[in-house]
């Protein structure tokens, strides 16, 4: 049993948890800045960047793709600013135009080029391939100390781990200015905080998390994890530090519970087919949000008469 667990479930569990947490952390700020759909938008915007990276390198590998994605995010932000300034339209409209146009560009690029050798297909994009990330060289917990077996770990684990570490480190480093700029932009400016640059950096960090997670677990998890754990965590506390902690707990909980339920749940009700782990993880995160809405201690403010 333990050998089978380490072989088949340990790595997907770890990757799922890391992906969920990497998205949930910047998600806290995106939700507070009313940019929650940015996660969705990013997964659209980065498509041309990913395809371009693939066309240039000829391989599906995470780092060039992340660079391409980050580059696409930069281009998107610049275009949005230009449209806003020149066209004098509201930011929402500028974003909408930019995101759909870039996504369409990505699809065109994908169709025009020979990417048939890779599985850049819809199914993969939505659900990822969490279940296939197995560690066949392992034969039990002892393998964690076995160099030869460790070398055979799916490379996605290291990538996701590094992306998660990068996201966490950047969030920790810029925590204070991010918090101040999100709460009170005018005051943040007066304190010499580069508000625009910071907002832009947040989008780039979210893009890093999104692209890394997208590769391993698909865009359903990305969208769900950007929004559900932070939104549920907001209902648990009135302190941003604690909110971050709760969001990470919720993200991990959703990933682990979702994976286990997807693998074993159908068996418990007599069905021979496992369901998609990504879909189940997203469902659990939605359930957590629903429970937080019903029982979260800091939810009273929603019904309280709001001060102008």
């Amino acid at each position, binding site marked *: 049993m333990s050998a089978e667990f380490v072989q088949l479930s340990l790595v997907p569990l770890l990757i799922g948890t890391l992906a969920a947490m990497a998205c949930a952390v910047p998600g806290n700020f995106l939700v*507070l800045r009313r940019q929650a759909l940015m996660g969705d938008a990013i997964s659209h915007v980065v498509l041309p960047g990913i395809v371009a990276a693939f066309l240039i390198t000829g391989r599906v590998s995470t780092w060039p793709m992340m660079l391409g994605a980050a580059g696409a995010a930069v281009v998107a932000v610049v275009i949005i600013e230009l449209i806003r300034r020149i066209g004098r339209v509201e930011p929402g409209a500028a974003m909408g135009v930019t995101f759909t146009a870039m996504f369409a560009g990505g699809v065109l690029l994908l169709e025009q080029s020979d990417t048939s050798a890779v599985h850049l297909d819809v199914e993969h994009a939505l659900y990822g391939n969490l279940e296939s990330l197995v560690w066949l060289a392992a034969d039990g917990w002892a393998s964690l100390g076995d160099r030869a077996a460790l070398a055979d770990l799916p490379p996605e684990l290291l990538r996701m781990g590094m992306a998660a570490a990068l996201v966490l480190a950047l969030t920790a480093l810029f925590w204070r200015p991010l*918090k101040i700029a999100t709460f009170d932009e*005018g005051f943040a400016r*007066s304190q010499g905080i580069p508000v625009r640059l910071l907002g832009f950096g947040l989008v780039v960090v979210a893009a890093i998390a999104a692209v890394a997670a997208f590769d391993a677990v698909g865009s359903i998890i990305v969208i769900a994890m950007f929004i559900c754990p932070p939104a549920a965590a*907001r209902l648990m506390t*009135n*302190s941003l530090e604690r*909110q971050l902690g709760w969001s990470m707990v919720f993200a991990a909980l959703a990933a682990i519970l979702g994976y286990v339920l997807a693998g074993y749940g159908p068996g418990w009700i007599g069905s021979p087919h496992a369901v998609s782990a990504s879909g189940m993880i997203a469902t659990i995160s939605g359930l957590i949000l629903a429970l937080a809405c019903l029982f979260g201690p800091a939810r009273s403010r929603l019904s309280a008469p*709001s*001060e102008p």
Partner: protein
Amino acid sequence: MAARQAPTLAASDGITRSAAPDAETAPGPLAIRGMTIAYGEKPAVFSVDMSITPGSMTAIIGPNGAGKSTLLKAALGIVPALSGTVTVFGRPIGEMGRRIAYVPQRASVDWDFPARVQDVVAMGLYRELGLLGWMRPRDRERVRDCLERVHMAAFAGRQIGQLSGGQQQRVFLARALAQDADLYLLDEPFAGVDAATEAAIIGVLTALRDAGRTIVCVHHDLSTVSAYFDHVFMINVSRIAEGPVATTFTAANLQATYGGRLLAAQIRDLGLGDVPRPDAPCPAPLRS
């Protein structure tokens, strides 16, 4: 015009004293030259000069829409000016942000943000703590002290949106206090604040002034100008008058600032004597 030197205060007020400013040589805390600001066609502030005396407590008075808030915002570089220059302690504003604390008339923040009162005040320590500096026990102590000075310590753990308007205003004043600035720009700090709190706030501001800091307040209550402030700046789009309260806060200047909106009887109630008729020679300034 030397700043009023008030007797020193007890050391327990939590303010470090800066060296007494030398009004002759030291550059003024805030100097504005030829400032014109327009939102649309019509200027909100027209060709205004302002020269704040070091260590003074100045009231900016004028009717609604006179451009008081606009002038403060332009001084801080929040709204762009059509023309004019601003220097803070002799330097451009961009280099001097650390020495200024500003409390807006109405804070435009995300009231639903997961921040408690103490978290908001702690934001005032950002310049000192920087990116990664830990909140040490004495920083927490300082946050608590700033809250106590505005009588808000009991609300330290309350979410910021769950306060009354006057309480919110006091939290932002506490954040400004935590900044430990040399120049305080406050836009109507007494609006919507009860009498006991007003007395507490004026006590805090006076203590700051007596410690050598400079205070500039937009103020609406003409009956307390003489009691609270030593200098006054009167504006109605253009500058009407500026100087020590004793010589500048006169019936003639009030009439010029408020025009017909201020009744002669109201001016009389301020103890400033009769309103001059336009053709009559200006009377000698009356002391309040």
